């Protein structure tokens, strides 16, 4: 991952006279990749190519330009399918993880009743909690939670207990956006399938850090956002097993491009996956995301995982005497992507503000996981999160910044 920052224009030297204001940030210490990652040139170029060379609507025009745009769009779908070890018909484009989870919550719950339950976990992001809560109000099912172990991992014994014959859906984060812990997804899927429940994996925080193989995970659905794996904002993926798309899931949005034939009284649906993509899609977003997964795969997962493990171990070691780390800080637990922390009697907001003076970007607050913070007995926390471009120098500067914070508040 040496010199990888060079591939990211935001870290380059400022160009004179940008028309839109703003500037590049060669000295920025960007430690908020769990919120959104930066974008490499290859992704920007791919989108730019669409806008400057093939801009037209997809699946519609007979003319060459539209054929080229459609080819680029479908090539991106194929890349993403390969990236997940899925088939192309199983890849549905959404606006992001939140869209995917809402679509699933709306689509899968109308048949549920007060006898049924949906199983989530204690560490879910609001996007994998609030949609289910709202649907529970409509349909009367209960929500159960898989508990955490003392080391803040998902407790498999608890999973086995809460998933029962009345469980219809089990939906969980593959990686926690606060604790960084990794779910034993395969085991949880096993429990769920033994009870004939469907499994949904929220891979938003995992997809940039771990290779994802939907066949190996044996999940029924998996969702993620493009902007968390170096792709554009406003694009995401809903993976679904083909059989479920064919038999269990009805189209969620209706309109153009998702139909086969329409009369004044009814309509029939297009083939997979178009039937789940009504209206003109985020074409440049899809193309950008395709470029992002190709680029990420080209770096090599072994190298990505090794680099990020090294950065994580280095950061935990440097930070453990400076701050109170939320979640596991011990070597044998695989922690991915994020370190949430607090400093006694200094509010996280103040930590972030002072770090900002030195061009260090971290996130503070509940990270859209307020119930988890309450569950852990924590208030808001500060969170540093890493990407492929994170260096030891970045972490050293964070540690220096934290020393400064403590000095100001001493």
């Amino acid at each position, binding site marked *: 991952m040496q010199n990888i920052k060079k591939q990211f224009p935001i870290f380059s030297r400022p160009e004179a006279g940008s028309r839109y204001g703003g500037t590049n940030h060669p000295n920025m210490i960007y430690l908020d990749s769990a919120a959104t990652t930066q974008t490499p040139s290859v992704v920007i170029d791919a989108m730019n190519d669409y806008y400057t060379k093939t801009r037209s609507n997809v699946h519609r025009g007979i003319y060459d330009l539209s054929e080229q745009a459609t080819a680029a769009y479908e090539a991106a779908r194929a890349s993403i399918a390969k990236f997940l070890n899925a088939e192309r018909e199983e890849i549905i484009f959404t606006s992001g993880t939140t869209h995917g989870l809402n679509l699933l919550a709306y689509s899968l719950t109308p048949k549920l009743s007060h006898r049924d339950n949906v199983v989530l976990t204690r560490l879910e992001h609001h996007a994998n909690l609030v949609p289910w809560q709202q649907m529970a109000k409509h349909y009367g099912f209960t929500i159960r939670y898989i508990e955490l172990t003392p080391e803040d991992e998902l407790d498999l014994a608890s999973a086995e207990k809460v998933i029962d014959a009345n469980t219809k859906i089990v939906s969980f984060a593959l990686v926690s956006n606060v604790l960084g812990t990794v779910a034993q997804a395969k085991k949880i899927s096993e429990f769920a399938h033994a009870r004939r429940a469907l499994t949904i994996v929220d891979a938003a925080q995992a997809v940039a850090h771990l290779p994802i193989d939907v066949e190996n995970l044996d999940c029924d659905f998996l969702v993620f956002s493009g902007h968390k794996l170096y792709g554009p904002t406003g694009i995401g993926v809903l993976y679904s097993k083909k059989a479920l798309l064919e038999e269990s899931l009805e189209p969620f949005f209706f309109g153009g491009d998702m139909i086969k034939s329409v009369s004044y009284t009814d309509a029939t649906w297009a083939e997979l996956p178009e039937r789940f993509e009504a209206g003109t899609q985020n074409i440049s977003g899809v193309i950008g995301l395709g470029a992002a997964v190709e680029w990420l795969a080209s770096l090599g997962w072994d190298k990505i995982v090794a680099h990020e493990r090294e950065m994580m171990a280095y950061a935990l070691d440097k930070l453990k005497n400076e701050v109170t780390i939320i979640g596991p800080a011990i070597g044998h637990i695989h922690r991915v992507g994020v370190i949430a922390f607090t400093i006694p009697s200094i*509010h996280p907001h*103040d930590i972030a503000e002072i770090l900002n003076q030195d061009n260090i970007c971290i996130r503070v607050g509940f990270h859209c996981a307020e119930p988890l913070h309450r569950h852990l007995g924590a208030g808001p926390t500060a969170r540093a999160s890493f990407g492929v471009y994170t260096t030891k120098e970045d972490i050293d500067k964070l540690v220096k910044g934290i020393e400064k914070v403590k000095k100001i508040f001493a």
Partner: protein
Amino acid sequence: MSGTLYHEALLEIYKHPLNKQVPSDFSIQHKEINSTCGDEVEIFIKLENDRVATIGWQGSGCAISQASASLTTDAVKGKTAAVIKTLTPESVLHLLGLPKLNPTRLRCALLALEALKKAL
């Protein structure tokens, strides 16, 4: 800007807050939460002849929001509800000795004022 954000007087008032207690006698109570960062300020007031006779607050949050709660509650002692409602964001910033804040931090600074206005 942020060089002067954590000036000494502000940090001092953050570490040694004013009026940070629940008064034994109060008739008005209101809590405001800043959902972006989890700051909380709850205000307790007893009015006499429409003037603030007793005021106290409880809360947790960043230095800006908490110092502001101290200084804002102190500034409105003896004032009428009508006068308090005319207090401006600028006047709170002046109390805090802060020139200008970005929109996120401004919400922290004005949390106590918001709680006060909603309480009355």
